[in-house]
């Protein structure tokens, strides 16, 4: 299996993307921002199409769109963290109406760019769009795979660097704010980092499927382990296991698309973690 170059590239990029998704996803689930993560991953699609319509490298569009959307959601949504008007902190999601409205509009822009793009360039638009939506991890070149690994590792380090204050701000926003932790800034920085992960992962997993790798392993880990560090490590490990298992499965069964296989394993892990009796301790409250 490892003798194929495309497989080695896929494993290199996939492993680091899975680690970044696992760790970021742990915070996403903790902060109740799964819908925001969903929106960010969908926004990757119009971003890539806009870049294609403008004749730029699609990665430029991917990163610009997801980082901008992350910032916009953090700024516009009242946020799960800023508990104003007596809302219980952390219990309610970051303003789901705002997120829903915003990303539907951005997806409509994606259709606009798709129309523009296909008016200009024959029939390749549909295939290009399908790649953006569902990814093509087996199609990554060596350079792309290395770049993906480096970016994912950098995001991983950045999240771990802000991990302690971010955790504090997520679990007890009021106390963190009173102690001088910049909770709002942390929220914006985190969503921007999540945007980078979404852009990177959507090349391998696809804009529509990335959510499974963000939410599944992290939710399973939070259900299984109560300790913070152990739970984060478990989330990263489970994401990695989903990625490796999925890639191996897709290699063994050629008709199975790799992104579908990865998500299938992530879902299976999540379902297993929900089996009663496996639960080690309460999730973070």
């Amino acid at each position: 299996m490892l003798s194929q170059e495309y497989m080695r590239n896929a494993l290199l990029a996939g492993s680091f993307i899975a680690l970044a998704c696992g760790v970021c996803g742990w915070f996403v689930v903790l902060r109740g921002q799964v819908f925001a993560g969903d929106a960010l991953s969908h926004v990757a699609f119009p971003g890539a199409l806009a870049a294609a319509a403008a004749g730029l490298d699609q990665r430029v569009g991917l990163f610009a769109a997801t980082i901008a959307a992350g910032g916009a959601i953090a700024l516009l949504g009242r946020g799960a963290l800023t508990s104003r008007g007596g809302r219980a902190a952390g219990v309610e999601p970051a303003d789901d109406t705002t997120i829903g409205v915003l990303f539907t509009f951005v997806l409509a822009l994606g259709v606009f760019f798709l129309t523009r793009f296909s008016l200009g360039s024959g029939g390749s638009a549909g295939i290009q769009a399908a790649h953006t939506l569902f990814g093509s991890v087996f199609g990554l070149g060596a350079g792309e795979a290395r770049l993906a690994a480096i970016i994912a590792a950098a995001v991983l380090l950045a999240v771990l660097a802000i991990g302690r204050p971010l955790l504090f701000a997520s679990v007890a926003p009021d106390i963190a704010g009173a102690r001088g932790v910049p909770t709002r800034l942390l929220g914006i920085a985190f969503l921007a980092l999540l945007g980078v992960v979404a852009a990177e992962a959507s090349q391998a997993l696809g804009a529509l499927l990335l959510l499974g790798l963000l939410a599944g392993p992290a939710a399973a880990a939070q259900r299984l382990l109560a300790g913070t560090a152990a739970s984060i490590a478990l989330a990263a490990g489970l994401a990695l296991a989903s990625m490796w298992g999925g890639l191996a499965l897709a290699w063994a069964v050629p008709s199975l698309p790799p992104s579908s296989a990865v998500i299938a394993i992530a879902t299976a892990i999540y379902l297993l973690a929900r089996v009663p009796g496996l639960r080690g301790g309460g999730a973070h409250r």
Partner: protein
Amino acid sequence: MPAEGANPTLTWNLAHDISQVLEYHFMINALLAGSAVAVLAGLIGWMMLVRREAFAGHTLALMAFPGASAAALAGVAAAWGYLTFCVAGALAIARLPGGARGSWREEAAGVGVVQALALALGFLFVSLYGGVLGDLEGLLFGNLLGVSDGQVLELVVVGLAVTAVLAAIARPLLLSSVDPEGAAARGLPVGALSSGFLLLLGLAVAATSQVTGPLLVFSLLVMPAASAQAITSRPAPALAASVAIGLVVVWLGLAVSYFSVYPPGFWITVVAFAVYLLSRLVAGASAGRRRRGVATGTSGLRAPAASRAA
């Protein structure tokens, strides 16, 4: 996107423009189908936002993709695929842990997993079928301009049925959405109402997304209702406003798309977004005026918050 041969141009004569739009049968069908969807989505979308289930609604809307591809693979009518996957998705989400506000995080993670799995299945079915995702635009935003007479009738029937059920359970559903503990204390079946609403949402989405595509359904579910929420917090006027905004948005979007190369789904969403921004601005201005007078609560004017204050 007009039929071949016709080359409509926008003139300053409004009556002439309108008669141009109504010249073709497919435009009339599109207007009828769009209106039925707007009414249905306006009602059920407002309830969805009050219950803070936009994420679940989005996930159910996306069930159209695995539904359509599974039906193509199995060689049955697409409607069966839509129906099966939407109902299965609604049941899966209803069975997720929590549901009460306390465990929103876990529920959201579960909804995310359901959505990713459904899309992964859809992708698998497409590649097993051997087809390419050729008509992506149609997949996402449907084909309002190709609605048959039978589909219009079907939409109207489903719309009436769902509206009737919604009207029947509206009061207990609203109470259990706004104040679940209080509703449970009064002996209302909060869990059953919640599952029932998700099923209703699933059925509505299954019926409409064949015509409008999953994304346009969702934008019609969320945008008019969000605009209505910004304008007023009282249920009856908000529902009326949501339906009215939905109708205006669909009509305007279809009319504009007739004169443009871009598809109706795009224009309807753009008009809806503009209305949303406008209503947020108006609501923000009037809330600012009120705050200068008396110190009131949040500017969001969301129904739960408002009824808690009352």
